[in-house]
């Protein structure tokens, strides 16, 4: 099963109510917000309504919100060898 990965790139501010309602129906709340929907004729029709506003790609797996976040979070740059609590037990 494949999915459409839909990202809102252009804001729908000032556009007709119908256009904004399509975004609402797809579950896109704000610009750069990403949603996944299974490939189907009705989702394709919805994408055609907002094709000027979104970036779309076809993916194999739908990521959760947490996985999306992890994907764009940079590496922390450090790792924890021992925790403070463990250290305290040694004293």
């Amino acid at each position: 099963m494949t999915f459409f990965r839909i990202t809102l790139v252009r804001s729908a501010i000032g556009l007709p109510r119908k256009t904004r309602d399509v975004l609402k129906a797809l579950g896109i709340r704000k610009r750069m917000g990403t949603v996944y929907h299974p490939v189907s004729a009705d989702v394709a029709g919805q994408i055609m309504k907002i094709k000027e506003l979104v970036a779309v790609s076809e993916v194999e797996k739908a990521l959760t919100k947490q996985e999306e976040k992890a994907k764009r979070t940079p590496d922390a740059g450090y790792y924890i060898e021992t925790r403070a609590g463990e250290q305290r037990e040694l004293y």
Partner: protein
Amino acid sequence: MLGPFRASAPRLGGLLWKIPWRLSAMQKARQRKRLRAVDHVVAVVDKALATKGITTKSLERWKTEMPTEQEMLPKDKYTIFDRKEKTYRKGIHKLPKWTRVSQRLNPPGF
């Protein structure tokens, strides 16, 4: 003379908007980029549906009626039909929300 309340022609005389009559080269480049972005979205949706063997009416209509960015004439990319203009054409940037709507076809012969 500077600041938010400075006297200038638009502020003193009421409605005087200075929208240039033609697009700059950069605006035209961005317009082409937007047209290609829409073409790309349509292509992705078309490919995804084709692999599943389904289709939808709005997609089929778009594919038969609308030219792609490469097929469009420069005239249609940057200008739009207007019956009130002397040359029947005005810059596409006069179209409200022109960066977020698809305006590709014009009346035949104009």
